[in-house]
């Protein structure tokens, strides 16, 4: 987050209900937080290319319409990104390996159950937004 304590998060999630839920959980901290939501891969890529340098964290689904998460990461490979957290339904070893090959910082399989999902996103907020430093 920047000096003023505003954390900017790019959330790329095509499931609108989940996007709303994540936004709500991520938003409940003392620090001001701006959450931008991309509803598909093309949207996500556009936002990254325009404001990629400004985000403090990217929460990225893999399975999205138009471009999937991997295609988005491939398109911005080499550019300086904030921490990229993959949050997806997939639990395949292949996807995990691919995510790390593409320099994702972390791969999370979405848990079943609302309670666990809330716990997961809250833990993401407490760790990645409130405690992790990014490279400028």
């Amino acid at each position, binding site marked *: 987050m920047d000096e003023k304590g505003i954390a900017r998060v790019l959330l790329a999630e095509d499931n609108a209900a989940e996007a709303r839920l994540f936004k709500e959980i991520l938003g409940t901290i003392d620090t001001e937080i701006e959450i931008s939501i991309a509803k598909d891969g093309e949207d996500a890529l556009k936002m990254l290319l325009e404001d990629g340098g400004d985000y403090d964290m990217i929460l990225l689904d893999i399975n999205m319409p138009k471009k999937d998460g991997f295609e988005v990461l491939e398109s911005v490979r080499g550019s300086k990104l904030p*921490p990229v957290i993959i949050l997806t339904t997939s*639990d395949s070893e292949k996807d*995990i*390996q691919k995510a*790390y090959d593409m*320099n994702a*910082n*972390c791969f*999370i*399989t979405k*848990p079943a159950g609302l309670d*666990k999902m809330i*716990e*997961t996103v*809250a*833990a*993401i907020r*407490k*760790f*990645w937004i*409130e*405690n*992790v*430093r*990014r*490279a*400028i």
Partner: protein
Amino acid sequence: MYEKETVDILLVEDNPGDVRLMVEGFKEGKISHEIHTVNDGEAAIDFLGRKEKYRHAAVPDLILLDLKIPRKNGFEVLEFINKQNELSETPVVVLTSSEAEEDILRAYELNANCYVTKPLDIDRYVVMIKSIEEFWITVIRNQ
């Protein structure tokens, strides 16, 4: 695949006060864990390479790594980790007092998963440890 019940954490830290805080902080978590502590970079490399006295060491599920440690620094440990296939998916949390931009950049370039600066304030320090426990142990390990 056999799932261990205990999460093995390698803590690479030379400051005894910090070690104590980490051990205490993790105790409050819900998941059974074991913290293996080494105090310098060479010991960290020996542990991770399972050399000599560490030949029966557990492969860690999580590595917490200070950068400013004696004998070999944290960057050298990161370089070693990068060369080990069996550690390719082991998360590395750099946990250090340095706020220097070049240190942050270099850690990420060496594939640290994340970089955390140790807070000066003890309350914030404890909150930070809890956030590590909640994320890397409770959430990630539970997948």
